[in-house]
């Protein structure tokens, strides 16, 4: 008898706790009509990928601040709501739902990786709220539906561009491809391998490694044995920095062409001397006045040099602001506005949208010269389609 009593008290206690807790979350933030135009940004603000999420968020924030300093949108301020997804797909749901349902945003920017972006995209599409993806490359993301747009080239395009560069700029004929095992590495490396072979080259070594790997000596030992004349590194800067420095240390001295993951100042810090001469896809024209102005302002405000995620977060916000100007501040108005954008010039360069809501843009490459990124080549989109 006593046991049942205890259980019932506990059940009641639990149930009431639960209800109180949920009611805490039911209060909508959008009460007391805020006149602001609210844009949601989600990304990894904590955890391993926090640098990318925060950098991208800063980029969006800066674009909003600049617009507000110029009087906002018809006198209405732009407010940024952020949500942390830790780059974990299931957290992507809670993060985007917080933005969509509690903050009632007019549109969303993904400052996150592909996994979390894909789960979030399904919810944005379902809620009919436009979402602009700033730097995730998985080709599947925009297939979630007509509300999902992207301001970054998909993996395949970048892979083609890297192959073209290795073949034409590097005059290489035997490529070793080392790629990080996830959707980013898989989509870029597959395209690079196919295009390199199509252009008459030979892929002599093609292997993946795990995200988070640090010791690449074994992989490099193997790659070296295949005797390549160029190394294609498809990776993020953490793994890429170590891979490049260990490759040079172990005497693998062929030219290196890399993916945009390495176009971050952290890559140079990690690889040190070994970074010298590495060429990487970068999605940004360093020499454009727009980028120079952005980089200068960003560094003044956040005390570090912006990387690709920051400049693309910035462009994602600029695209949304342009869409709101052309349409209106409702989600469907933003969608209509996005459809009206024909040619867009942001800080990373100029692009147009395809009917599949992907961009058509020149492919930029940087080279590391004297420990600094330098603009190296621009390849027209027609060549890397």
């Amino acid at each position, binding site marked *: 008898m006593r046991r049942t009593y205890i259980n019932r008290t506990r059940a009641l206690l639990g149930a009431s706790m639960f209800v109180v807790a949920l009611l805490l979350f039911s209060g909508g933030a959008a009460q007391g009509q805020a006149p602001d135009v609210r844009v949601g940004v989600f990304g990894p603000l904590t955890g391993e990928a926090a640098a990318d999420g925060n950098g991208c968020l800063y980029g969006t924030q800066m674009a909003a601040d600049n617009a507000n300093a110029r009087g906002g949108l018809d006198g209405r301020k732009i407010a940024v709501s952020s949500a942390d997804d830790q780059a974990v797909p299931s957290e992507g749901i809670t993060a985007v739902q917080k933005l969509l349902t509690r903050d009632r945003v007019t549109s969303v920017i993904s400052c996150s990786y592909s996994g979390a972006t894909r789960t979030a995209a399904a919810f944005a599409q379902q809620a009919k709220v436009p979402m602009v993806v700033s730097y995730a490359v998985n080709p599947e993301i925009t297939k979630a539906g007509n509300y999902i747009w992207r301001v970054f080239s998909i993996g395949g395009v970048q892979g083609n561009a890297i192959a073209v560069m290795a073949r034409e700029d590097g005059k290489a004929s035997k490529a070793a491809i080392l790629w990080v095992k996830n959707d980013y590495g898989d989509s870029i490396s597959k395209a690079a391998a196919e295009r390199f072979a199509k252009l008459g080259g030979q892929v002599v070594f093609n292997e993946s490694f795990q995200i988070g790997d640090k010791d690449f000596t074994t*992989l490099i030992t193997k790659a070296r044995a295949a005797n390549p004349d160029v190394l294609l590194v498809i990776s993020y800067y*953490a793994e890429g920095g170590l891979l490049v420095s260990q490759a040079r240390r172990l005497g693998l001295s062929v030219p290196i062409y890399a993916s945009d993951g390495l176009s971050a100042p952290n890559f140079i*810090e990690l690889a040190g001397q070994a970074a010298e001469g590495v060429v990487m896809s970068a999605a940004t024209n360093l020499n454009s006045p727009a980028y120079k102005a952005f980089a200068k302002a960003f560094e003044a405000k956040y005390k570090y040099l912006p990387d690709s995620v920051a400049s693309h977060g910035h462009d994602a916000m600029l695209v949304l602001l342009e869409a709101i100007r052309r349409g209106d501040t409702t989600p469907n108005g933003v969608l209509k506005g996005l459809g009206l954008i024909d040619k867009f010039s942001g800080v990373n360069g100029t692009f147009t949208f395809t009917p599949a809501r992907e961009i058509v843009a020149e492919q930029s490459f940087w080279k590391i010269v004297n420990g600094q990124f330098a603009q190296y080549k621009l390849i027209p989109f027609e060549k890397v389609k």
Partner: protein
Amino acid sequence: MSVLPQHLLNGLAVGSLYALLAIGLSLTYGVLRIIHIAHGGVYMIGGMLSLTLLATLRLPPVLALATTVLVCAGLGVLFERFAYRPLRGANVIVTLISSLGLLLAMENLARIVWGPVPHSYPQFLPLRVYTLGTIVITNLQILIVVLTIALMIGLQWVLRRTNLGLATLAAVQNARGARLVGINIDALAVAIFAVGSGLAGIAGVLEGLYITSVDPSMGAMFGLKAFAAVVIGGMGSVVGTILGAYLIGLVEALTAAYISAGLRDVITFALLVLVLMVRPSGLLGRRIERA
């Protein structure tokens, strides 16, 4: 085939680092039955702290190393005193959750203090590369393997020849019996955590030198693999633990070499599961008496 020795050498270097970490785990489990997952966090703190000492404060390497070892040892003792000792005798899951909490707290604290990105580690030892035919050996690899083996021999000596060591071995065999014959488990616990955590700190410094970078996330998976080494080798057997560590290092290197680097963790942990299914107490382990 001529690259095989190279792969084995690479495996030995990584296995050494696992061994340095695994010792602490083996002793804490053996004596106190704590699955000390936060040990990987101590190793990470070793790497990050020494980075600050070397790069920002520009301390001489020996001083930086000594400070790191001391701080890590102190951290271990602190954990023992405030997180684990109050839980002594509780279900092993309780200490496990506490340990996971410590790891989570350390990782995220480090992300706040040092930032979430990896940092390049100061290379205070000039790199030397020796080429023997097709094999490339660096002085760092030699240092790591030799230093680890020396430390392990020293540890064996302490365990076999000193009162503290014998008390430890006795407690590993039978904790209740050890208490009955007057061994002070509290003092022993402090000693074990201090030594184990100090070794973890050394491992953090060596990893920084070898890999050339450190980051706040470096500890979690590394700690888990070190624990896998302890389990494979057999809990409560120091020799088994060291063996397990080298086995994992070699399996990882050979998987990367002959199967795929992308499958390394899958194969390592599949091996762990298989070993335990065939030999439930690990390769050299005895059944542990449940106190």
